[in-house]
């Protein structure tokens, strides 16, 4: 108990890793359970952010170089591209199927 309190008082690498693990799990839960395609996208954004926290936490505490920051920038760039493409696809699906429910979108061509 004493050790736990001491641990809680000094944020270190493990705090950030646990935060990112929880964030990843929340994002995964959204991806698994949500029917709305846009909610699935939000879950993916949470997962990408969890990965980024890991990169930067390791960059501060383990490698002590800025390489993790550069990787995080690439992740952010790809997340932006992914969001743009995915939302364009969702809008197109909405025009064709009149729904964004991922369970009902089961035809490639009608």
């Amino acid at each position: 108990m004493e050790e736990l309190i001491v641990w809680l008082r000094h944020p270190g690498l493990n705090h950030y890793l646990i935060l990112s693990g929880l964030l990843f799990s929340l994002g995964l839960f959204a991806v698994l359970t949500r029917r709305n395609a846009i909610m699935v996208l939000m879950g993916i954004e949470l997962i990408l952010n969890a990965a980024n926290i890991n990169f930067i936490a390791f960059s501060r505490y383990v490698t002590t170089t800025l390489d993790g920051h550069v990787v995080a920038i690439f992740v952010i760039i790809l997340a932006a591209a992914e969001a743009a493409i995915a939302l364009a696809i969702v809008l197109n699906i909405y025009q064709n199927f009149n729904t964004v429910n991922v369970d009902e979108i089961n035809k490639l061509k009608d």
Partner: protein
Amino acid sequence: MIDLYTVLFYVFMLTTLGSASIVVFSKNIVRAAFALLFAFFGIAGIYVFLLADFIAVTQVLIYVGGILVLILFGVMLTNRQINVDAKTGTVQTLPAIVITAAIAATLIGIFWSTAWPLSGQLKMMDNTASDIGSLLLSKYLLPFEVASVVLLVALLGAAMIARREKK
């Protein structure tokens, strides 16, 4: 006495996790999108604690200013009436809870039990932007150029896909 650093760390951590929970569990999709805003801000604060000032600013600019606006556009454009049809259901909640809890427990167990080689800490800098810039134009030049091409292609493709077809 708990110092201010620790208090602020937990404030940002709880902001992030609480907002992310609202994103995941809220029935109203507009509320979920706005909770995502606070989750992104909380993560930007966490980056500041990790001495990543440039990444924190980039997070605010790109995630909050770009991706979140895109998501809000998506929400507004794909719901017939904002107030009536803005709900979103869930499926297979129980198996998903089991799987997610198992993965979370595994991840945290691995993080906890691994002896990370804590060789030291990143040294404090006035700003990380200039060093990141040097890295991008020397060690990571090829990924940097590829990323610019990917962005160009992705944005052209997005404009192409989202355009309404002429009848």
